[in-house]
């Protein structure tokens, strides 16, 4: 019985890694940069600074750093309505860009580790998958 449970545990672990093959952080950041250039840069700019009053900054952003899961949800499902970022109110619309979970993890890792941003947390595809609307 114990052996069976152990085997099941191993299987679940194995299935987990098989479903969400996590790549190294450096690779995720590099892939995320490409996604960023295609989907995010028009509004948040290549500096991550955004446009005051229009598109919020991603660099040194209190909203982002304090609400990583909420930010992932915004990328995954879209975000609209008022939010406050670094003391400034933004009331725009960010549409869901149609990215898959892996792409969202990659772009989040890029954003969280660019322009001076630093995060010890690596965003995994699994974490993105678990965030619901």
């Amino acid at each position: 019985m114990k052996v069976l449970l152990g085997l099941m545990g191993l299987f679940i672990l194995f299935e987990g890694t098989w479903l969400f093959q996590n790549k190294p952080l450096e690779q995720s950041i590099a892939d995320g940069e490409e996604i960023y250039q295609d989907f995010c840069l028009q509004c948040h700019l290549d500096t991550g600074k955004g446009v005051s009053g229009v598109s919020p900054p991603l660099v040194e952003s209190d909203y982002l750093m304090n609400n990583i899961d909420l930010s992932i949800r915004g990328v995954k499902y879209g975000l609209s309505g008022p939010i406050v970022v670094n003391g400034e109110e933004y009331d725009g619309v960010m549409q869901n860009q149609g990215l898959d979970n892996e792409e969202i993890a990659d772009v989040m890792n890029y954003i969280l580790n660019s322009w001076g941003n630093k995060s010890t947390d690596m965003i995994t595809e699994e974490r993105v998958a678990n965030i619901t609307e």
Partner: protein
Amino acid sequence: MKKKFSALLYLGIFYLTSCISQENPPEIKTPDQSNYSTETIVDGIDVPWGMDFISENELLVTEKKGILYRVLNGKKTEVLGLPEIYKRGQGGLLDVALHPDFKNNTVIYFTASAQLEGDTGGNTALYCAKLNDNQLSEVKLLYKGTPNTKKGQHWGSRIVFDYQGHLFFGIGDRGNRDVNPQDLERDGGKIYRLNLDGSIPEDNPFTNKEGAKQAVYSYGHRNPQGMTVHPKTGEIWENEHGPKGGDEINIILKGKNFGWPVITYGVNYSGTSITDKRAMPGMEQPFYYWVPSIAPSGMAFSSSGVYRKWKGDLFVGSLKFKYLERLVIKREKIVKREKILNDIGRVRNVKEGPDGYLYLGVEGKGILKVVYK
């Protein structure tokens, strides 16, 4: 001597200022904003990408994320029967236009980003369908760009009709600027001309060119986001997003190359150069270009005269700076630019309604009517 010196001084100042400010004139003015206001026609739409009027109080509006609304007296009802939409980046449900004989045949056209069964990635597609009440039927794919890509940007598209029974629409460069816009054998970075049944007009410019996409009418475009027919000349006017700087207004001409990315007034988003070439033989110059970019979207001439001082002027939405731009044209030149409805929101679309008023699609709001007090 004194004259010579002051001439030199003026020349020096001229060079100095032309180096410092690279803005393309005329400089935009912000007139007294109390002369006009808006009335909300319909609200609760995140990105009202396209619209067309069935009558003075009834219109169709697209919501980019994939909803088509029929709006009657301000009340919106979802139209059912759309094909599957490939939602990716700037893609989605884009423009909508009534067939010129809609009253009799109930046909509408719309553009959307499409991923057909079994495909990866997607490209812009033009459809037609019959609209009865709130239901589409006989949905037909008239054109779809190839090849597909997973890139999220530059789908075009805007749909307009000339007075000779043609439909025009655009597809942007689909994020492959170095390949698509200058290659007639691939879609993307083009304006297309079709007959109303979707067939290709025999006198299209590249029908005799082997391998070329026969629907192409002009090429070398980046991302068309506004298109309208000049009320007097019948010309097709278009605006498109440049990179950083270099948004353009073009008058579309048969078979012509509008130059992207070989010539441009813009630079990369990072500020690095794309090319130092602004003009080349065999490539058209824009009618006007914006530096800095305003991110133009939608385009309409005010032809009706309901706004006393605006008759004949061109109106373009600014996504980036959240206003409606009025452009006054004299002797084939833009002589004046004004911010109308400063800070109204990201203006996605501009149309002249059957009642002669201007209607705006504003992001996060819906459709607004421009009222001159």
